[in-house]
């Protein structure tokens, strides 16, 4: 594969996109999961679908939009939705997860209506639904890298604040951390990650890439730092496997990435269980002798 990467530009683009997404998706995912908001990824992905549909519709009817990648309108939609989620979360303090079905249903509804209104598109909608890492275009790669840098900057610069807010919002606010501001910035980061990941894993599977590596990492992480590091490692393994499978076997990259993530999760759970049994046995033996 290494020769292929050196030889073909599309392989280089796929590799860069995969590595970038494999860093930012799980990093943002850790914060979402510990806040019990992992399904937001799914909801925003569906909103992005309606944004993409709107973009395709505009492409058809408005000359200005002909050269505009529908993923940009998708991102616009998911940014708006993400800020709206933050607002709903404030409104329903005790039912913060309520924001998710509201946005999810709204997103799918709008997407379906837009697609049917457009009477079917000449572009393959399936490409957005399932993603294909090998089809990342030259302009898209610049955009994915920009998103990657921005998201990483947000997380690194506001790591302290994001941690404190995720662990205990009340105390964080009391100690003077600007909750609204930081949460808004984080919402923007989430929306950007979702849209950028769609090329690689597809709308239907984005939440898998955002949450599965985190789920595996939470099994073994003792500290928050470890949770971040492990989830990035797992995501990298998954994304690179997806890339290899897409290249050699012509499998759907998104599906492979998510399947590998599930496999990693199961392996971690299995290893943990075996480790526990062994430790118990050793302790038992030590007691006897």
């Amino acid at each position, binding site marked *: 594969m290494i020769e292929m990467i050196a030889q073909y530009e599309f392989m280089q683009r796929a590799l860069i996109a995969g590595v970038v997404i494999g860093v930012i998706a799980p990093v943002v995912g*850790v914060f979402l999961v*510990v806040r*019990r908001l992992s399904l937001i990824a799914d909801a925003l992905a569906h909103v992005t679908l309606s944004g993409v549909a709107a973009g395709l519709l505009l492409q058809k009817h408005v000359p200005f939009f002909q050269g505009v990648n529908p993923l940009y309108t998708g991102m616009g939609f998911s940014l708006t939705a993400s800020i709206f989620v933050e607002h709903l979360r404030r409104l329903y303090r005790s039912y913060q997860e309520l924001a998710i079905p509201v946005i999810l249903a709204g997103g799918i509804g709008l997407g379906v209506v837009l697609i049917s209104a457009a009477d079917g598109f000449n572009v393959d909608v399936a490409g957005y639904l399932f993603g294909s890492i090998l089809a990342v275009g030259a302009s898209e790669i610049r955009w994915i890298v920009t998103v990657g840098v921005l998201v990483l900057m947000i997380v690194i*610069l*506001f790591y*302290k*604040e994001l*941690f*404190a807010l*995720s*662990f*205990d919002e*009340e*105390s*964080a*606010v*009391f*100690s*003077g*951390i*600007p909750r609204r501001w930081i949460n808004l910035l984080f919402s923007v980061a989430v929306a950007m990650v979702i849209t950028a990941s769609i090329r690689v894993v597809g709308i239907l599977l984005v939440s898998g890439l955002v949450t599965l590596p985190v789920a595996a*990492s*939470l099994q073994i*992480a*003792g*500290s*928050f*730092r*470890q*949770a971040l590091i492990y989830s990035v490692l797992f995501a990298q393994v998954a994304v690179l496997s997806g890339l290899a499978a897409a290249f050699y076997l012509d499998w759907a990259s998104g599906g492979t990435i998510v399947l590998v993530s599930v496999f990693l999760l199961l392996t971690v759970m299995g290893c943990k269980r075996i480790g526990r049994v062994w430790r118990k046995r050793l302790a038992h033996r030590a007691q006897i002798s």
Partner: protein
Amino acid sequence: MAESVLTLKDVHFSYGDQTVLQGVNLSLRRGEFLGLVGPNGSGKSTLIQLALGSMVSDAGEITLFDQPLRRFRDWSKIGYVSQKVNSFNRGFPATVSEVVASGLYGKLGLFRRMKKNDWNKVDETLERVGLSDLSRRNIGRLSGGQQQRAFIARALVHDPELLILDEPTVGVDTRSVEEFYTLLTHLHREKGLSLLLVTHDIGAVTTYVDRIACLNKKIHFHGDPDEFTRKRRKILSVAYGHEVQVLKHDHEPVPLA
């Protein structure tokens, strides 16, 4: 130097049409250890929320460090452990150190990272509350009492001048409660920390605090523990209602709530 750390003057507050505080007067002087007691639903936590500015009173005046609450900005002078602190997500992947360090984040401010001496501060504080050995342990894997000490450490790590604790000894065994009071008395005496402690443990609190306030919508008593002990029957029967239980068990901690 400020004489008064916290004062409430004729403070009123209601949730909708339910009056919770009705003309409350309270003061906490610098270096004082004040115990706040009162039955469930008497408005103790509400009073603290108002004092910390997370809710706004309907009427009355509140000052922190001799400044009107509206203009008070120096939140790093205050450490606070909420009554709900133990309802955090048990599966949260954070070590005790990481949680305690987050107590410094507000004071550090945006864009400033934790430095070596900040981490030293965290270790020192953990040592003070007796959690040094558990600093790398996952926070969800501590016992209830240990978790409470971790949260007290988080509230202390930025060296506050006033520490507010809302029922920190609920669900903590007797020995740990004793250790906890020893820790508080130590902080209070050696560091001159002003303390506001909300508790149901009337028996214990009278032995440790400088002054006691008894709240139920209004302040029914505000004075020193000796006087409180002398008038205890009367105060409690007024503040807690006519509960026979309170009147009978005079020499043990009152089994309320």
